[in-house]
């Protein structure tokens, strides 16, 4: 049965309500006390990688130009703002934000491979820690699907790891952050979320890291799995899954953060967009810069532009592995005889930014096209 009741025994509920009320009366802004140990609430680690959900605006109506120096939400502030979570899980926090930046610094500059490694290593430690039941990771929404997908491939665990963010800052009017955070903690605390790979939970939907993508710049329903839909919901009554992924992930993955090469040695892979008369020299420049692989985001069913074909052949002649995705961002690139002949590997229905990460990892193991094709078929 794939559901969990969130209702606690009545005595425990009364004790907790009393504890929360007392604490709120005495120190309105204080973090609620940890529930008594005998309650055996799940232990959820709340890891901040920052993001809009970790940002404040100068006014409630500032929904676009928030964050920056002095405008960040500390991880413990989330917990004190959401006393309700103390009925669901025992929360501890970890701070994996990039250093505080100036207000006009570029967004999400913390999303480097080196930073991913640090986070993945810590996630693996938490996964191995028997006292931890689940992890929630906050992230800026722009590239969170990439970070989640990387973790989905290299952290070997059956425990829920749930990525969450928000479209409006923590201080925004009708902010989506608080409910997203509350629900992500519920998902991470839920036994039904185990064994499903890294999850993404926003706007009451639960998606798989493999398939989810940001589809709208500002709307709260931005995260969608274009081809296959959500797997479950975090509704007021229960966290419920209707589907689970069939592709390899987390504990079924052959990649492991502990055995990956140093981040500086992770094979370099770039993405080349396909459009009418795109010059081939972009691909030549990538090769000259030492890429080991190129993802061509092809037109239609995954066709590089005609003007890219010669450059692709030159790249392949130098041992660069070429993978093709479809810029339609829905539907699979299929395995066809002509494509096999061209030596270009179809990326199934992965988005180019996700195909890039998988290819980087695949290239740490092999450069054999057949083997890389297998990896794209299985993950």
């Amino acid at each position, binding site marked *: 049965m794939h559901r969990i009741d969130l209702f606690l025994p009545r005595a425990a509920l009364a004790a907790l309500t009393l504890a929360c009320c007392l604490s709120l009366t005495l120190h309105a802004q204080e973090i609620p006390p940890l529930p008594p140990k005998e309650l055996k609430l799940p232990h959820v680690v709340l890891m901040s990688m920052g993001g809009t959900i970790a940002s404040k605006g100068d006014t409630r109506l500032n929904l676009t130009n928030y964050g920056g120096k002095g405008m960040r939400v500390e991880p413990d502030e989330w917990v004190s703002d959401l006393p309700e979570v103390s009925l669901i899980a025992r929360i501890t926090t970890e701070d994996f934000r990039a250093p505080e930046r100036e207000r006009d610094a570029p967004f999400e500059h913390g999303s480097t491979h080196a930073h991913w490694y640090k986070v993945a290593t810590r996630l693996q430690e938490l996964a191995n820690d028997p006292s931890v039941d689940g992890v929630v990771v906050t992230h800026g929404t722009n590239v969170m699907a990439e970070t989640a997908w990387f973790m989905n491939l290299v952290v070997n665990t059956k425990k829920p790891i749930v990525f969450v963010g928000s479209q409006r800052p923590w201080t925004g009017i009708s902010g989506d952050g608080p409910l997203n955070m509350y629900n992500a903690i519920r998902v991470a605390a839920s036994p039904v979320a185990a064994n499903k790979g890294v999850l993404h939970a926003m706007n009451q939907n639960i998606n798989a890291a493999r398939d989810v993508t940001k589809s709208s710049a500002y709307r709260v329903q931005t995260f969608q799995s274009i*081809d296959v839909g959500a797997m479950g919901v975090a509704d007021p009554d229960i966290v419920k899954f209707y589907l689970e992924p069939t592709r390899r992930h987390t504990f079924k993955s052959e990649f492991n953060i502990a055995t990956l090469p140093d981040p500086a040695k992770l094979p370099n892979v770039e993405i080349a967009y396909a459009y009418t008369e795109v010059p081939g020299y972009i691909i030549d420049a990538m090769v000259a810069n030492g890429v080991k692989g190129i993802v061509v985001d092809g037109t239609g069913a995954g066709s590089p532009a005609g003007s890219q074909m010669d450059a692709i052949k030159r790249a392949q002649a130098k041992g660069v592995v070429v993978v093709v995705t479809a810029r339609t961002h829905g539907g699979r690139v299929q395995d066809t005889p002509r494509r096999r002949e061209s030596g270009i590997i179809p990326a199934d229905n992965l988005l180019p930014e996700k195909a890039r990460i998988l290819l980087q990892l695949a290239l740490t193991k092999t450069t054999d096209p057949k083997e890389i094709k297998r990896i794209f078929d299985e993950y």
Partner: protein
Amino acid sequence: MPHTQRLLTLLLVLAAPVAVAAADLPKVMLFTTGGTIQSRASYRAKLHEYNDGPRVTPADILKDVPEASALAKIEVVEVSNIGSGGINTTLLLKLAKGLNAELAKPDVTGAVVTHGTGTLEETAYFLHLTVKSKKPVVVIGAMRPWSAISRDGPLNFYNAVRTAITPEAVGKGVLVLLNDTIHSARLVTKNNTYHVETFVAREIGPIGFADSDRVVFYRTPLTRHTADSEFDISSIDSLPQVDVVYGYQEASSAGVDALVADGAKGLVFADSSPEYRQAILRAQGTGVVIVQSDRKGSGRVLATDSVASRGVIASDNLNPQKARILLRLALTKTTQPRELQRIFNEY
């Protein structure tokens, strides 16, 4: 009759290579019930009201799509050849029992069912709950008649046979396949009156695709179905009457009372109306079970305390027509609201 015997031997020898080849192929049972996929119109461009040509027989399907017979040894069980509006309890039970009998045979790999698209999701969900096998059952239809320009039926049929013999399709419950897209019978619904992309699963989405290179699955359904279902129709010849009541502004309760008077054992409400309150209490007073579903087409009805305190069952995200199917089967087991709610939570 030595002559006959010799002739038989000769025939057997001649037929041997073919027989061996056919024996190597997996066996797929084709159950046909009819629908647009088995309809013919008087001219090719006629994409509506296409019942003016002779019906398409199972043999016609096999003859028109010889590629399918190259993949599998296809044997036919003709259940009916009618539109989906005519499918009734008798036919549903006949279909489910027939599938159970065939799928129990070790040499059968899977089954394909043709069906009209209008109520296809109801039959597929009924089979999802009553077929006692992990073997793939693929329900198909077509949005354009078999006679039409750019008809979708042949590819849907070919893809269904491919899916029925795909090992990864085992254990995923009853599948609905049109337009290259594989849906779980639990989640799928018809979303458009005429277009080929009509079948969708709204927020949850499809579980796989039948593409030219590969039949591919991305998801496994988690609610209970087929081999894991508690419903057994093997000795059942009829099912309790359950009807659906639509909800809208100022809806009259007269229809509710009339259905109860007609002998309904359960009522599924697609949304509600203040007018229904008293009628629901009257219905419950006579033992009628009430399920609350919704007309929006996506999202769950929550089993809240207020719903439970009124003895009403929440349909989860089952649409009204599917909640009706589940309630009919559930009522063969219990009329206890708590137990019925458990069933709606699990299936």
